[in-house]
């Protein structure tokens, strides 16, 4: 089975600053998708950003961008101009593009935004 590793259980950032959350994964597949999900306290999980493995260009969504290093199997999330509403648990996830539809989630990184 694929594994997803988030080595930072907790991170903090000053409001308006930039923070990068790390994620590595292990797979032998070439066709897959990578995701970052945000889970605010007591609220539902929402998709932040998605990257298709066959695309070399890094995905961006407003203040959120990724650094996708396919050879290194690394998928980090950069949050620019951090806002108080960005405080949440962030999960990195992997999904195969071919063999089944199972999501593999990391253990999460808890992000605190300091005013």
């Amino acid at each position, binding site marked *: 089975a694929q594994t997803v590793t988030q080595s930072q259980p907790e991170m903090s950032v000053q409001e308006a600053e930039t923070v990068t959350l790390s994620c590595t994964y292990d797979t032998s597949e070439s066709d897959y*998708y990578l995701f970052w999900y945000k889970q605010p306290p007591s609220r539902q999980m929402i998709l932040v950003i998605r990257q*298709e493995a066959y695309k070399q260009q890094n995905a961006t969504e407003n203040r959120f961008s990724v650094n996708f290093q396919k050879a290194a199997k690394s998928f980090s999330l950069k949050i620019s101009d951090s806002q108080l509403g960005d405080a949440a648990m962030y999960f990195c996830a992997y999904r195969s593009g071919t063999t089944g539809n199972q999501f593999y989630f990391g*253990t*999460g990184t808890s992000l605190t935004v300091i005013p």
Partner: protein
Amino acid sequence: EAGVAQSPRYKIIEKRQSVAFWCNPISGHATLYWYQQILGQGPKLLIQFQNNGVVDDSQLPKDRFSAERLKGVDSTLKIQPAKLEDSAVYLCASSLGQGSHYEQYFGPGTRLTVT
């Protein structure tokens, strides 16, 4: 559009008791997922439905867990009998289809405490 609905939001039961959770996906979404999220971990897929058929239940503890989606719309997940290690948040998610490119939309979850 209305999101994924789940009930109850919280449930406390004693070990060996039974419990059921309900999920109503987004209208028109053919694929429905149940996840178990233990504190400090990422969500783990328990079962995936495509309409009213099971696509993947490889990680469902079938001796005590069961799930159904009889009419291909809403779904119930049951635990009978519950164990202490079943304490977790149970997340329901839905997507238009089962392909990996389809976004999953998550419900708010049901937090189960087994005492």
